């Protein structure tokens, strides 16, 4: 029996060891940002005191010595947000709001770059961001217990002092700034900007959630925002265009380990026009489908509707309608309505058959035997649909 049991034990023992190894690996793989650090420009002051007595055992005056070391900035890769892709139309810029959060231990300036990586169906598009953004950062000097940053009201965070006391900003963090601590976002309500080897304080407004425990050394990073403006160029055809833009941020000293980048795709929507033509045999009251029957000499009322189903303005829209065989255009019958389908009688705008009167409509002038209506711009949506009415007589 024994030899049968021992191999099983060996197997389970190995499994257990494997699990241990896994646990260790997970612990080692924790993000470096969680590592405790000290804020840049903080003073590390070492003070030694000597107490001593003379040969007779009488205590003498203490002597002390101090030595200061200033903590240096450790540039770190900032966290860049990824805004949602946008749609736009030619003539309107797409504006994206980006958030950049510092992971460093002090104030640093980040150079922003934006570039059109590729564009499809459109040409001449451009992208721009501000040249740079400065973000403050510090570290938690005294551990904060769970709930130490209350959900409401204000709470005080102790941080190392920087080398510019009284400037109103601690390592670039000032009143009104947005800061991130362990993923939680707070706004700065107040600052006590002391100097030397002391501590200063940052007072934050509660964000609606009580904090967890925040260990000493936890990084405090400012979150700044900037805009990316994408200006569409010219659409190459009737199809939508796409503009891919890369945005990245890098510390001015170019020391940070990697460069975060984000790609947005801006869709430049092309206009989509539809045109319908309907006929009425009752003077424009109803426009039934099918093939209505009418005798020679009867009047037919036509309704031509142009609708823009896209999301951008259609410009330079012209409706042309040559008279069909066996019909004669009835002078002075052209009318226009905008929006939902209406009757001929209700159409509000009369159009003249001549040019030069500014209404854009003519008959038999621009093109012989043809009604021509220069509409101009048709904005998207059924509410902006253009209806052109005119009447003909059956010969």
């Amino acid at each position, binding site marked *: 029996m024994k030899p049968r049991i021992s191999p099983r034990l060996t197997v389970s023992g190995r499994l257990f060891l494997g699990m241990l190894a896994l646990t260790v690996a997970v612990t080692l793989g924790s993000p470096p940002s969680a590592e405790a650090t000290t804020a840049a420009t903080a003073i590390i002051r070492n003070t030694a005191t000597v107490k001593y007595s003379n*040969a007779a055992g009488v205590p003498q005056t203490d002597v002390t010595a101090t030595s200061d*070391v200033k903590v240096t900035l450790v540039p770190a890769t900032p966290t860049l947000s990824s805004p949602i892709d946008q749609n736009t139309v030619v003539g309107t810029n797409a504006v994206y709001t980006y958030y950049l959060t510092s992971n460093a231990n002090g104030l640093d300036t980040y150079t922003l770059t934006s570039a059109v990586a590729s564009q499809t169906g459109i040409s001449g598009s451009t992208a721009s961001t501000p040249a740079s953004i400065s973000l403050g950062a510090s570290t938690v000097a005294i551990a904060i217990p769970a709930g130490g940053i209350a959900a409401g009201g204000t709470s005080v965070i102790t941080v190392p002092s920087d080398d510019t006391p009284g400037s109103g900003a601690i390592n670039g963090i000032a009143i009104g700034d947005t800061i991130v601590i362990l993923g939680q976002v707070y706004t700065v309500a107040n600052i006590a900007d002391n100097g030397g080897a002391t501590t200063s304080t940052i007072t934050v407004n509660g964000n609606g959630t009580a904090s967890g425990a925040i260990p000493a050394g936890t990084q405090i990073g400012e979150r700044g925002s900037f805009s990316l403006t994408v200006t569409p160029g010219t659409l190459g055809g009737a199809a939508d265009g796409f503009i891919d833009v890369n945005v990245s941020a890098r510390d001015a000293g170019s020391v940070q380990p990697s460069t975060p980048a984000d790609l947005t795709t801006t869709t430049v929507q092309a206009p989509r026009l539809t045109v319908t033509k309907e006929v009425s045999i009752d003077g424009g009251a109803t426009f039934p489908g099918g093939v209505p029957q009418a005798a020679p000499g009867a009047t037919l009322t036509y309704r031509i509707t142009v609708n823009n189903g896209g999301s951008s303005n259609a410009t330079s829209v012209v409706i042309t309608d040559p008279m069909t065989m066996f019909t004669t255009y009835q002078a002075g019958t052209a009318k226009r309505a905008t929006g939902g389908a209406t009757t001929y009688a209700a159409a509000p705008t009369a159009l003249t058959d001549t040019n030069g009167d500014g209404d854009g409509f003519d008959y038999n002038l621009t093109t012989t035997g043809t009604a021509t209506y220069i509409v101009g711009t048709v904005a998207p949506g059924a509410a902006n649909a253009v209806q052109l009415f005119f009447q003909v007589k059956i010969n």
Partner: protein
Amino acid sequence: MKQQVIKAALTLTVILTASVALAKPQVTIAIQTEKEVTTLQNGQKATKRVAATNAAPGEILFYTLTYANAGNESATSAVVDNPIPTGTVYLPGSATGQGADISFSIDGGKTFKKPSLLTYEVKLPSGKLDQRVASPEEYTHVRWTITTIPAGGTGKLGFQVKVK
């Protein structure tokens, strides 16, 4: 002969001074802060210590405390206290000091003990008190106790910390 004369004269000067001012010890202390930098020399990596005026988180600072007795009498029961600087942690086993008795505190300098005796009690969930030996990261102070610093005597003490 000449040398003896000079020596005698020197001794006389000392005695004269002593007779004017009351004999007393005068201890001084100075701190030198250094860090290690790696340099490439003839293709070989070499580390050397340089004076540190700034340091990045994670760097190790080497503190050297030089004491001297500039007085004309022995100093006795000299105690050098050095709190671990804020923003740093003590590096285990780094405290040195020839002829000095080294002890540490984990309670902000109230009590000093040898590392193995630095213990604190933790209340277990069962309610039982568990005694644990403090880890070097928990040290708040280093103390060197020097029984006697003779007149004119000097010595060096040292310890290292890591910048948090």
